[in-house]
């Protein structure tokens, strides 16, 4: 999975120019290819929303696929799917990459304020899932004081949990997907999961061991998401949706995907009667950052961004410390070890360098969970350290081998032991050579630490992403995030430069 940390700069620029480019692109696209309806979705979300057909993997199936087809037919266009990561759909639609986003996208005040949203076409309930054994004692959020409650980051459910942290003293745990919260619930890493009933019921069909509590925590809706400049197209789509609500087309679609229930006819009745439907019921949205001034929103989120920065810097420092220690051992083993040791260490280095760090983090946290149930922060720390150790070791090995053999022989003839030759002559000089690339890696780790949000560690980039989702814009969150990263990396680089100057061998 790609992370936003690598895209922040692009997104800021995209955000700044979003409106004008979006309009231009839409206009050009409309003029050139009026017969296509480009719709963005994330097949990783899976059924019943969007997934590759198990029988024909080149074809997509799901109720959002059918709704896209319905809208395209109503507009006399051909639907064309654009595969976009779930948490990038807003930005992609805003840029004009797609005409509409459809992938179980929630109706929120932020989206209503910054985008054009269709009529809500499905009503869901936020429900609490707990382990079967806890079904009697954890019935509501108030019962979960001091417990870890998981959900998908940047969603209504996450916002509910953040408030419940304050009101009930539980701990919100943010995931990047809606599958692992339930598997971690079953193995005991978290004590409850708050997500919508569609996701909860879907997981319950695949995983046993948890109970969905009957109490509804909040009510929300799925909508289609369009660029703010695409309001006329949105209005045309709303007419199509109204017709589909009246003639039973939507009911047929949702029944086919086994998600039809009594809530939907009531929703359709209200919509067709022209009644306003609030985006969320059960969560006070009057204090939503989307409706605040930018300054108030920033003041509200700044403490959590600073807290996430502390996580980032602590995690990076500890991981780098461990990576350096491991890297030194690997490099020493590769230079001084026997044939088998050298081969084993070479294998480790190539394995780590040859596989993506995200895969390594997943294996460490989820893959090994059956054998070793590491806490998220420890898994993140170890994952980053084990990965960076391989790269560090190559820097140190190169630096050790750069020390002239003559110096080592001179040290030996003076009576120094091999250990002393290493610690008194070779390593101190090698360390000076390695300092600049090490600093470079440290700064890189500050940014790569954003990857650990996949292990539910809420660091700076993830917190920024949540801020941006709730605000409906990346401009302020992205700028603040970039500023905080710079505030961490620039002093680090300056300290390293001072150290380099101090240790530099004087020039002739």
């Amino acid at each position: 999975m790609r992370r936003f940390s690598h895209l922040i700069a692009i997104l800021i620029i995209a955000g700044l120019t979003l409106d004008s480019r979006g309009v231009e692109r839409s206009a050009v696209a409309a003029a050139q290819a009026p017969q296509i309806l480009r719709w963005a979705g994330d097949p990783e979300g899976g059924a019943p929303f969007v997934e590759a057909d198990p029988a024909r993997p080149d074809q997509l199936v799901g109720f959002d696929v059918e709704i896209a087809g319905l809208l395209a037919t109503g507009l006399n266009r051909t639907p064309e799917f654009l595969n976009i990561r779930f948490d990038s759909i807003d930005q992609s639609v805003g840029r004009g990459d797609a005409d509409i986003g459809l992938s179980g996208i929630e109706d929120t005040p932020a989206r209503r304020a910054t985008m054009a949203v269709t009529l809500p076409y499905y009503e869901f309930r936020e429900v609490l899932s707990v382990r079967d054994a806890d079904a009697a004692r954890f019935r509501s959020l108030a019962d979960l004081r001091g417990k870890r409650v998981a959900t998908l980051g940047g969603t209504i459910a996450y916002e509910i949990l953040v408030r419940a942290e304050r009101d009930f003293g539980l701990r919100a745990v943010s995931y990047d997907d809606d599958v692992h919260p339930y598997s971690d619930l079953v193995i005991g890493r978290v004590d409850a999961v708050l997500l919508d009933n569609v996701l909860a019921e879907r997981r319950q069909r695949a995983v046993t061991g948890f109970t969905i509590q009957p109490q509804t925590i909040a009510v929300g809706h799925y909508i289609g998401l369009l660029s703010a400049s695409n309001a006329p197209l949105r209005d045309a789509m709303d007419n199509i949706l109204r017709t589909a609500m009246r003639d039973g087309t939507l009911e047929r679609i949702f029944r086919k995907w086994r998600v039809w229930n009594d809530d939907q006819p009531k929703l359709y009745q209200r919509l067709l009667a022209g009644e306003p439907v609030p985006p969320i019921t059960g969560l006070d949205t009057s204090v939503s950052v989307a409706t605040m001034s930018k300054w108030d929103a920033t003041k509200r989120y700044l403490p959590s961004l600073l807290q996430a920065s502390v996580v980032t810097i602590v995690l990076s420092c500890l991981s780098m410390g461990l990576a350096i220690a491991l890297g030194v051992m690997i490099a020493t083993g590769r230079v001084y070890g026997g044939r088998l040791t050298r081969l084993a260490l070479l294998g480790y280095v190539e394995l780590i360098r040859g596989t993506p760090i995200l895969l390594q983090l997943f294996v460490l946290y989820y893959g090994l969970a059956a054998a070793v149930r590491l806490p998220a922060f420890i898994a993140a720390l170890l994952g980053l350290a084990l990965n960076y150790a391989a790269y560090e070791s190559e820097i140190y090995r190169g630096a050790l081998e750069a020390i002239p053999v003559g110096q080592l022989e001179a040290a030996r003839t003076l009576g120094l032991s091999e250990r002393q030759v290493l610690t008194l002559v070779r390593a101190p000089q090698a360390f000076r050579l390695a300092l600049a690339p090490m600093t470079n890696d440290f700064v890189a780790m500050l940014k790569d630490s954003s990857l650990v949000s996949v292990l539910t560690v809420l660091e700076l980039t993830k917190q920024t992403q949540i801020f941006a989702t709730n605000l409906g814009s990346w401009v302020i969150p992205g700028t603040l995030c970039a500023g905080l990263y710079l505030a961490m990396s620039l002093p680090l680089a300056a300290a390293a430069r001072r150290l380099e100057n101090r240790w530099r061998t004087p020039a002739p």
Partner: protein
Amino acid sequence: MTDVVLRTERLHLSRGTRPILTGVTLDVARGELVALMGPSGSGKTTILRAVAGLERFDTGTIVVDGVPLAGGAPIPAATLRQLRRKVGMVFQFHCLFEHLSALSNVCLAPVHAHGVAPAAAATRGRELLAAFGVEHRADAYPRQLSGGEAQRVAIARALAVDPPVLLMDEPTASLDPERREELGELLQGLLRQQRTLVVSTHDEEFARQFATRIVRLKNGVVV
């Protein structure tokens, strides 16, 4: 020669299939300055490296002030430790430790390999640097030293643990005539202290002027 301090006997050494030394037998008495001469590839430096314990030889024996080395096997650690007290070596390119000052270069081995107190080692180090005329460069780093200064620091470093035998590889290679003359006088001073010097060199004039004996090598044997 009554007091032989260094003896090599039928020394054979090959690198792969290429013979480097093919039966070198050589006795050096205490207080001698022996100049090893011969064309490039004749084995001069290899003999010094074998005597210093840096190069394993195939057959033959070496005895340095009572410490015996046998061919065909790695030198036992205890023997190597004894050997290090008997032989100092000055490399052609000096090989000073770049991250340490001149004085620290000289003090490193006495403190860390021989357990001398740092203050005592520093006093002795300064004395050695003074004896070789480079005391004023004690705090300079190797890159800040001239070729002649670096060589003197390297000699001081090799003598800091007081070995009876000092080996020098091409000591005049990078010196101008004036510095070469100074080096010769410095070595004469060491001879007066009853040290034994074995010097590999291409410099016929230097050898004739300062060596007590010239040993010529060709194709890995003494001729």
